[in-house]
């Protein structure tokens, strides 16, 4: 078994645990490279078709290429796709800096979707190497009744035994690719020939490393126009993956405040 085989086997194990131990789960599909790998892994875990919904909490501000991707592969992969809108920006905490406030809309949209469907588990494609606060996450991560994350009181989690009993009305976040890195995602995408949105590849000297809303995501300078070239670039770079995400840099703790409130 090589490195990617090991990552894949671990993720499949997590998917099957979530499906076995929770009543009503959904996968959060942001349309980005990480959640596309997740869907692929779910299809591997369940032998072809993902047996729970793909939930897209739509800010309405994604790139056109992303919407096209969603509509095409939602059908081709036979997904039970649920698109849920976010509330208007006025409904969101005005004390947050602009980009964080915009991202917080998504958290509100997520809460509304949770209330609508009553999911007890949401599968999210966050990774430990992305961002320091995400490094502290559990694989099965309990959320409070308000969808909030209590970083100070996380249950122990070891030997692939997960805490799968959220209190009544609360839900769990499940993180099947928490142990993957950005380079792992690309190497696996290439090996498995998983479709990607072309915005990740260089055009006119720039590409997106991470795709969020149009107004708060910026491309990085790059000449990488294939996955192989992206992998070489990642070997060299010391620029963090989310450098193009404006919300990470507004204040020291903006990201943590968002996560405590229930952001991914």
């Amino acid at each position, binding site marked *: 078994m090589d490195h990617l085989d090991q990552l894949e086997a671990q993720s499949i194990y997590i998917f099957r645990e979530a499906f*076995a131990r929770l009543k009503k789960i959904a996968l959060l599909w942001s349309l980005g490279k990480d959640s596309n790998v997740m869907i692929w892994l779910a299809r591997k875990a369940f*032998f072809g078709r993902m047996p729970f919904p793909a939930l897209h909490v739509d800010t309405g501000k994604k790139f056109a290429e992303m919407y096209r991707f969603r509509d095409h592969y939602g059908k081709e992969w036979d997904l039970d796709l649920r698109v849920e809108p976010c509330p208007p920006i006025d409904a969101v905490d005005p004390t947050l800096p602009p980009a964080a406030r915009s991202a917080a809309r998504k958290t509100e949209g997520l809460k509304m979707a949770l209330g609508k469907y009553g999911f007890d588990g949401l599968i999210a494609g966050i990774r430990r190497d992305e961002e320091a606060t995400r*490094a502290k996450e559990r694989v099965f991560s309990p959320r409070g009744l308000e969808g909030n994350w209590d970083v100070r009181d*996380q249950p*122990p989690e070891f030997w692939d035994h997960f805490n799968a009993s959220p209190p009544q009305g609360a839900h769990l976040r499940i993180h099947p690719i928490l142990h993957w890195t950005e380079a792992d995602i690309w190497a696996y995408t290439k090996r498995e020939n998983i479709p990607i949105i072309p915005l990740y590849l260089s055009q006119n000297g720039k590409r997106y490393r991470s795709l969020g809303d149009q107004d708060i995501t910026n*491309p990085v300078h790059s000449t990488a126009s294939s996955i192989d070239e992206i*992998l070489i*670039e990642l070997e060299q770079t*010391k620029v963090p993956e989310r450098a193009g995400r404006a919300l990470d840099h507004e204040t020291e703790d903006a990201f943590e405040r968002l996560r405590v409130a229930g952001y991914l």
Partner: protein
Amino acid sequence: MNMIVTPTSPATPNGTTRPQVRIVIVGHVDHGKSTLVGRLLHETGSLPDGKLEMLKAVSARRGMPFEWSFLLDALQTERDQGITIDTTQIRFRTNSRDIVLIDAPGHAEFLRNMITGASQADGAVLIIDALEGVRDQTRRHGYLLHLLGVKQVAVVVNKMDRVDFSADRFKAISDEISAHLNGLGVKPTAVIPISARDGDGVAERTDRIGWYEGPTVVEALDRLEPARPLEALALRLPVQAIYKFDDRRIVAGRIESGSLVAGDEIVIMPAGKIAKIKTVESWPVTPVAGRQGAGRSVGITLDRELFIERGDIIAHAGTAPRETRRLRARIFWLHDKPLAKGDQLLVRCGPKESRATVVAIEKAVDPGELSSSENKAIGRNHVGEIDISLSNPIATDPYTENPRTGRLVIEVSGRIAGGGLVLSVDAGQRAVPVDIVPVESALRPDERSARYQHNGAVVWLTGLPASGKSTLAKALERRLFTNGGSPILLDGDTLRAGLNSDLGFTATDRSENIRRLAEVATHLARNGHIAIVAAVSPAREDRATARRIADTAFREIHVATPAGVCEERDPKGHYKKARAGALASFTGIGNDYEKPEAAELVIDTSKRTVAEAADEIEQMLKTTGVLFDELVDLAANI
């Protein structure tokens, strides 16, 4: 914001071919873990551009001197409290290894986080302050590394600058910690004097530690070996789930040890059923040929329909794990309330779960104390050895024979409260029938159902004595037979006269009585007959067992005739005898009958005739797919 990415140069060897080793850094609070991590990242050139400058600027803005540990303290809460509260994972490279560094908190308050971090590690660095020496949390972490199965441990003696780089001080600490770890069966791979703040001993042997001849921290990390999958051990495939998404019935799980290939003879524990692997299923290409080894998440199909459930363990005949209802374990305890004899728990062994009772507590100690005093209960953050009695049999191995399946976790109120190693298991009551190979019927199920106009089923009538179970069972038998079906009556009392004549009326014997009834009935149902079971079967758990055995063929009918009516009927005179005290263990006059909560049908025979009741049963069997609808529908369509 636009960031400049360094122009590409010839590719270095790609990350997937270098061994990846996961390291945890543990030790007493404030002995310098975060500082060492910050320094390691700097020395190995692993910091993102701008990170160091950003943190230096933050420090200046807050009027504090820069500390290496700030690199990890990305959370506001940490900076406020000055302690690392959770595990963080950081990646960097040594000459020949990709290191994933898990920084685990040293504060006793966060032992659960230390365990969460350390349980994922292939190796550990145990850090000790040269001035303070070995402290309680140093010892506790050493003990937990042993319990978590982390065998490669490097010790670093930090803050050597605070003891003027004294070789004598270093030797005293080195001797003390080596003795402690050796006592636990852990041999340190190196003991290294360092100053994480100044850099001595981290990547370089500086003049100030010129007397030291061993490896630096970076060199010691470079020598660690990644965990190897346990392919050389006996096959253990714990079942996570059975999937029936299409016409395949796939048994899914991760191979914890050993390997398997299509065609293998397997035994399913704890029941001991035998089968052959028909195919190994996958996606997008299926089936897959070739041997599948430890670490793989797989799906297999079998050559026969057997009842299998989540938590069963698939093994090879001859090397199966032991079935047990009782085991001894060495555990660590994280729950606020101490663990005491008699406590009821939930034990998980892989995907298998069972309710359990603590039968005895031995050797409860605080692993942080020098002289450990033994207690009757295991307190929070303490360790101990316990005997556990399990309400469901489980299949497991002692951890010395299989480190993956020989460990368990304990849950209290749905939250993980402890974990540990299986030291020994009591042999199960049942011998493993390794040389039994069931013979398949010559007839297919659909051949029989075409003749009988019904599918096989287990119709289970439960209720108080004299509630009317046997009367209803006989009426149903007659009616099904008249319609061309193949009903077979299994009466509890009748079977007690023969097959079950060795059983009495204790709870254990009653459970075994029900298990045998269910096995026989299920065998009949699999062969297309409708087995009608009439048995008091008062225990809900026993009926749940019957339902598990018969699986989708099970139809439960609660004959809910009021107790007063039953006692008045008393055709066998049992109530009368029991009232006179001449019939011990009689269900009916006590409150020991546990009503079904989700029976397919409930019938009160005091309110309807036998024929009406039989109609209701027939209707239920039609709506639940046992009896085929009459052919009138077909005729109507002509």
